[in-house]
């Protein structure tokens, strides 16, 4: 019998306990990975390819204060600016839904490809969108969710503007990081009863990355001490400022993760020491046969580590397989999009499992070290 098979035999002697132990590690690590992934997606939203060249301009007071439409010409004249589109959140409820389930933005369709180049759509759909003022384009995730196709009508009642509109789907796009949104003509919003002469935000495409800081600053300066001071920042900075709004939720999820890890250590450590205690006599026999403490420690550690590792493989593996292969966007109704299990998160979870294996072997090791051979041999069970 090799040492490896000796350890395996020992670990699996009480199959039920080994199974329960492995499973509880697996469940906890699955939970840990899920929480981490969710937290990462919420606090570190995925970034679009084109985001590096986009500047978001909003009212300095807050995002809910509008900007005058006349600002557009001023921004367009700033050197380095390639295109400027209004971008107004419509906040519409779809059909008779109780709350908003996807976002709609009014913008300038002619600049769609220039500013949001990531959106992929057949050529004729682009043309159809531009040509018809009552047209809209819809992200594939939302289109799939409501089984909408090109030509369908989308009735929306705004929670922000005093109007309801009905849009015709001219195209369905995909390829952006967030294929959920609906885009439509800003002109149509103005005519349908929005607030003509006002927009919610400007989205600006800058010619090159090098010019970004200068353009951002120039926009900020252009409207300083005007009736509508603005705040221009990169799309990324804009995104992250929303994350900060979550407030204490982030700390809360972090503390929950800590509690999960702690519970996990506790349960597994207790199981491990239970397993060793049952085997006190055998360990005493091994001791009597001349095995040294060091070797006994190695047995215990290997067993504990092995169980933790097996649990880790099952838990992390299930999470990885599930989140990578299942369509998370569909499962969560579009609340989470990528749900990416990053190597970093896997590494963290694996580290937790490894430390767990070590910590769980501590108590039994100490007990074995203290035990005298005679006493151990006398132990009945």
């Amino acid at each position, binding site marked *: 019998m090799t040492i490896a098979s000796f350890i395996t035999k020992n670990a699996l002697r009480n199959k*039920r*306990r080994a199974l*329960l*132990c492995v*499973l*509880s590690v697996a*469940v*906890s690590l*699955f*939970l840990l990975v*899920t929480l981490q992934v969710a937290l990462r997606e919420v606090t570190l939203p995925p970034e679009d390819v084109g985001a590096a060249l986009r500047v978001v301009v909003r*009212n*300095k*007071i*807050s*995002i*809910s*204060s509008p900007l005058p439409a006349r600002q557009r010409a001023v921004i367009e004249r700033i050197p380095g600016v390639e295109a400027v589109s209004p971008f107004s959140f419509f*906040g519409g409820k779809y059909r008779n839904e109780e*709350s908003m389930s996807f976002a709609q933005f009014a913008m300038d369709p002619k600049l769609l490809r220039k500013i949001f180049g990531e959106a992929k759509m057949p050529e004729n759909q682009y043309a159809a969108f531009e040509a018809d003022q009552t047209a809209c384009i819809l992200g594939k995730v939302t289109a799939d969710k409501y089984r909408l196709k090109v030509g369908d009508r989308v009735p929306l*009642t*705004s*929670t*922000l503007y*005093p109007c*309801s509109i009905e849009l015709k789907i001219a195209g369905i796009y995909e390829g952006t990081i967030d294929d959920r949104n609906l885009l439509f003509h800003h002109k149509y919003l103005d005519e349908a009863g929005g607030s003509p002469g006002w927009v919610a935000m400007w989205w600006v495409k800058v010619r090159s990355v090098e010019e970004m800081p200068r353009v951002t600053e120039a926009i900020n300066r252009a409207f300083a*001490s005007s*009736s509508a*001071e603005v705040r221009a920042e990169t799309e990324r900075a804009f995104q992250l*400022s929303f994350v*900060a*709004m*979550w*407030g*204490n*939720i982030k700390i*809360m999820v972090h503390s*929950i993760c800590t*509690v*999960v890890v*702690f*519970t*996990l250590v*506790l*349960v597994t*450590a*207790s*199981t491990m*020491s*239970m397993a060793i205690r*049952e085997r006190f006599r055998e360990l005493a026999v091994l001791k009597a046969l001349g095995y040294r403490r060091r070797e006994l420690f190695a047995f215990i550690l290997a067993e504990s580590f092995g169980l933790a590792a097996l649990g880790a493989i099952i838990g992390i593996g299930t999470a990885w397989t599930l989140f990578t292969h299942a369509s998370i966007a569909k499962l969560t109704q579009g609340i989470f999009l990528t749900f990416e299990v990053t190597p970093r998160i896997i590494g963290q979870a694996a580290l937790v499992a490894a430390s767990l294996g070590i910590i769980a072997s501590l108590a039994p090791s100490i007990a074995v070290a203290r035990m005298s051979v005679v006493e151990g041999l006398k132990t*009945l*069970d």
Partner: protein
Amino acid sequence: MALPLRYNLRNVIVRWRATIATILGVALVVAVYILVQSLAVGLEKSSRNTGDSRNVMIVRKGSTAESSSQITREQFQLLQYWPQIARDGRGQPIVSADVVVMVTLPRRESTAEAHVLIRGITPAGMKLRPQVSLVAGRWFVPGRREVVVSQRLAARIANFDVGAQFKTGSHTLTVVGWLDGARSAFDSEVWMDANEARSIYHRDNYSSILARVVNETAGAALASRIESDKRLPLRALPEVQYYSAQTMTAMPIRILGNFLATAMSIGAVFAAMNTLYASVGARTREIGTLRVLGYRRRSILSSFLVEGALLALVGGILGCILSLPMHGYSTGTISFESFSEVIFEFSLTPWLMAKGLIFAVAVGLVGSLLPALRAARLPPIVALNSV
């Protein structure tokens, strides 16, 4: 005949290490469950605590938050003298048209920002909200760029100390006092003079109207009169009802709590199972003896079930105790209705704790069912012969 409870108790104490681990495991699961749910309860409570039952709130039809509602001056003029609205001693209608603006301000302890609601309010509006009181400094003077901020908000937002100044857009406002909203939605607001707010934020329109109605029937009459008046695209409803419906933010917290509780309880069930299986294994001979003495299978079964449930119950109680210190602790997140910072507190209700305990006992019962069945099914002779 049932086995005496003392038997379980002594057994639990003998195997104290495994017992403590199981109890602590259950305790942590219950604590997480209670704490997360208490957030949702706290959020709903702060909505429910808001408003006066004699008031009617009027907002634009279709708007989901006051900050996105608009009421024109003409609309306000049209309805403010309606007979359904109560009058004060001098015959003036008790009605207030507020303007609510969302502003972005830096947080106190980080570079991050928060959306904060500023309510431009009239003296009548303050009289209509008697639950709000001044706790420090003084009220703002109409005509001056002064604000009174919620005390709870002041703990989270930079430059909100009495006497401090902060910038919004191109204007500077001075904080002259702190208000307390008695754990209502007003705890998340900043109050200032309505006309000043309209002027610095360029608002021609009001956001909402709050009116004292003569009585409940008058309130209903007012609502139906607004509903039928084609010039008024507005909606009137009791103020209490308006706020109590603002609980969308609590939903995801509830879902998170339930998800966590489910996932963690699976782990806790495994832990309880492990402990009890080991306990059954070690007591095989005892069980054989008990059977020979005449105890029925079902007595053995129920004895082990009771043991598991008791163990978990102790864990549950410990979980409640662990989570208790958080009661009343104030926290904040973004509201899904107004998209602004909403302050609320962990709120541990007796019912929530009872739910936690029931949950713990369920975990104990499920975890001990299989080991208990095994114990009950042990053939007495085999059990007696086992070493």
